[in-house]
């Protein structure tokens, strides 16, 4: 079937959503879940900066509190929502809920609750991991991945809740929900791009591995939002929000004083270390939106191939020279913050020396990985399209 530009789904005009259309206001549980997601986003950025600046922490750091608050809020609100939908016979959500294990509730609420359980399980697991293998000084460890899975569950569940309400809505209310949707998707991309941040340091930006992992992380979300939203600039808007949130952390975190409380110290720290300057994903997002319009009548695979390849090429075209700039003295200021390093980065590190690190052994390997990057860009775009199409159909 030839694909066309996303238009308002026919189902939308047939909906009768007593829970939302009547009031035309976004339901409380969506706000609480969005707040829960924001809490985890702030907590995670703060926690990473904390570990890079201060080093030592305890269970009771404010960053940890934000992260756990996210799990508690999502767990309690969605748990209540499920119980209320199950046991209140006149619940407005009863007709637009799914059933599982004898309970009823919105699909997104079940996913959020699953994420909250994952986050709770990650707590004792992570504590034992620290006691057994020492405090981890890296992001990727099995308990952290479980925590990230839990957080992803909450973000995905929130997204599904927003979508179900949006797909049932029309008019101004739908537009209102669509604005919430962009934030929800931007936070999902924060997850997929955030989990690989150890591989996306500027020192890797002239290697193929960087582009390969990015093609697994970014196009899928960008294609998804483009296919789920009615707006012709959906990918651009969502990526702009994603970039703005990242920039907020880049500029706000260094405003707080901090001193290192762990040794050995290789970098003198006076304030919270900001995250790296965001990647220029906005460029491929704009290209994606522009090309999406021109390829609207093509077959899905032809569209995915074109959009995926264009995404990779435009990303390389923007990020490769930008990486040169990030290595240059011109970027070492409060705007681009490339002169900020975690306390534990030795002065001999390529990061501090502003040297690119080759991630492949040979020219051939470089091109093999670039070929994999192209393949990933196309396939992940196609998956994102299918994901978006599925999400447009979510009603409950």
């Amino acid at each position, binding site marked *: 079937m030839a694909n066309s530009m996303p238009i308002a789904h026919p189902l939308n005009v047939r909906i*009768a959503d007593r829970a939302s259309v009547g009031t035309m206001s976004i339901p409380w549980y969506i706000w609480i879940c969005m707040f829960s997601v924001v809490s985890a986003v702030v907590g995670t950025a703060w926690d990473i900066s904390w570990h890079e600046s201060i080093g030592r922490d305890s269970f009771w750091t404010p960053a940890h509190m934000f992260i756990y608050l996210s799990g508690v809020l999502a767990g309690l609100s969605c748990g209540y929502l499920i119980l209320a939908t199950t046991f209140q016979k006149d619940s407005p959500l009863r007709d637009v809920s*799914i059933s*599982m294990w004898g309970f009823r509730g919105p*699909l997104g609420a079940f996913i959020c609750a699953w994420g909250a359980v994952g986050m709770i399980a990650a707590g*004792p697991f992570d504590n034992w991991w620290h006691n057994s293998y020492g405090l981890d000084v890296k992001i990727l460890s099995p308990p952290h991945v479980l925590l990230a899975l839990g957080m992803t569950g909450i973000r995905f569940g929130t997204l599904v809740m927003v979508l179900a309400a949006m797909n049932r809505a029309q008019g101004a209310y739908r537009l209102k929900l669509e604005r919430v949707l962009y934030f929800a998707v931007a936070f999902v991309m924060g997850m997929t791009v955030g989990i690989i941040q150890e591989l996306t340091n500027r020192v890797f930006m002239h290697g193929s591995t960087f582009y390969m992992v990015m093609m697994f992380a970014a196009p899928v979300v960008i294609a998804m939002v483009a296919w789920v939203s009615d707006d012709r600039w959906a990918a651009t808007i969502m990526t702009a929000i994603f970039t703005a949130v990242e920039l907020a952390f880049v500029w706000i975190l260094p405003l707080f004083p901090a001193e290192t409380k762990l040794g*050995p110290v290789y970098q003198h720290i006076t304030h919270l270390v900001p995250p790296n300057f965001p990647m220029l994903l906005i460029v491929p997002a704009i290209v994606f939106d522009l090309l999406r319009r021109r390829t609207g009548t093509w077959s899905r695979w032809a569209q995915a191939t074109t959009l995926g390849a264009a995404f990779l090429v435009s990303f390389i075209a923007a990020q490769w020279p930008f990486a040169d700039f990030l290595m240059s003295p011109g970027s070492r200021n409060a705007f681009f913050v490339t002169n900020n390093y975690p*306390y534990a980065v030795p002065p001999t590190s390529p990061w501090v020396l502003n040297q690119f690190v080759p991630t492949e052994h040979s020219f051939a390997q470089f091109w093999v990985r670039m070929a994999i990057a192209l393949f990933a860009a196309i396939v992940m775009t196609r998956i994102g399209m299918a994901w978006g199409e599925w999400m447009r159909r979510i*009603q409950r």
Partner: protein
Amino acid sequence: MTLGLKGRGLATALFLLVTALPLAAHVGSPDVYYEGSAGPYRLFVTVVVPQVIPGVAEIQVRAESADVRSIQIVPMRLTGPGSNFPPTPDQAQVSKDDPQFFTGSLWLMESGALQVRVMADGAKGKGELSVPVASFAQRSLPMPKPLAGLLVGFMLLLAVGGISIAGAGAREGNLESGKTPGPANLRRARIVMAVTAVLVVGLLLLSKSWWGIEDTNYQQRVNFYKPPLALTTLENGNRLVIRAQGQDPAWSKRVNMGGVLPDHNHLMHLFLISLPGMDHLWHLHPERLEGGAFADDLPSMPAGKYQVFADIVDERGFPWTLVGTVDLPEINGKPMTGDDSSWSGAPLQPSQPGSNSSPLPDGGRIVWERASGPLKANEAMDFKFTVQDKDGKPVPDLEPYMGMAGHAEFVRSDFTVFAHVHPSGSAPMASLQLAQAGLTGDSSAMVMSPMSGMAMSGPMAMAGSAPSGPLAPVVGFPYGFPQPGDYRIFVQVKRAGQVETGVFDAHVEPAPATPSK
């Protein structure tokens, strides 16, 4: 004399060690005991190192005088990058019961040669000292069964819950309001659940494999820091050649035997102790050969099986003890010269209360000024020994033996613990020299000879001794037994050009209320 350093601080520090097993690393005695001067203040410092790295070390500081108001502590690398910028120091907490006793916790973030700086402030102004700490992962913690059960429960809930949610979403997620799923929805739900189940199982298998890799990597780090094996060969009837072999393949690549530092004048301190009763001891000093091996022409020795402990300090200041055993025929060797020394006597009698007095060949004796009451594991103590002449009077002519008032070797009956301790404590002199070199000003009372690594005053001798004159007749060694059991303590001093060795046996009981390591 017991310094009373046990207590809640230690209990806190040992919370990780509940299920720990005795481990032959450095050898079996990883905690650091140090006595020295921070400017005008005499301090006794204990560093209870964590068993996992990064982990929390417990620091205990006892001030000899009452005029110390505050103690700050901070960890750093011993040498190289990372030894320049200290993190913000921690304020050690003063004990409510004892105003001269301070405790604090420090995170040790990496393995290797670190130091703990101790800054004292009080009525006489400020002073600073540095304690070298060998930081290394010793083991990993087995998962307690209740926790394993809880996590398996969570895993099953998440796995089954995930499959169910995927199925419910596929079955009903796209249905319009009020509609019930038809056969097509149910079929799709079953397919989605089957696919999700495969994905979940795949994810779990992948995670298990990843966990295994992480565990293997960690175990490699643990093995890296296990005592290297001392591989010995006997050449020409009396020449013992010693080669080090790490317990991890990476050891020989990262530890350069050509770069070991002189530790009070010698690159290696070799101890040969007869098995099983410790009735003979040789303390020798092999020379380095080309290619990183060490060799020594042995003195005359009876045939038998000997335990080998060989102390070296690598170029980063990290102490290693090579461990092994060797079967020797009767050796007709050369007479001992220089700093080499030996002792022969009665074997260790386990669980027997040893004598506090050890006779010397010249008719004199060494007396252990031991407090009454049983010895306890994990208690920091100052082991004091008085050297007396044949008339029972303290000797006036004690002289430095390899630059210090004495050397003591603490050996457990099963050889799982070996510690070579000096009046300054359990850290080797070469590491101490690196640590003191980084201190600013002249706050340390130590006077170092840059070439020899010898300390001529301060902690090396007892208080009041002068660098050049005869030493006080009392020698003290700060140390704590790491685990209960039977120990033999060899105390070595020098008088009138002769090295004299006193031997004491000690039965050590488990530490009360705190688990033994």
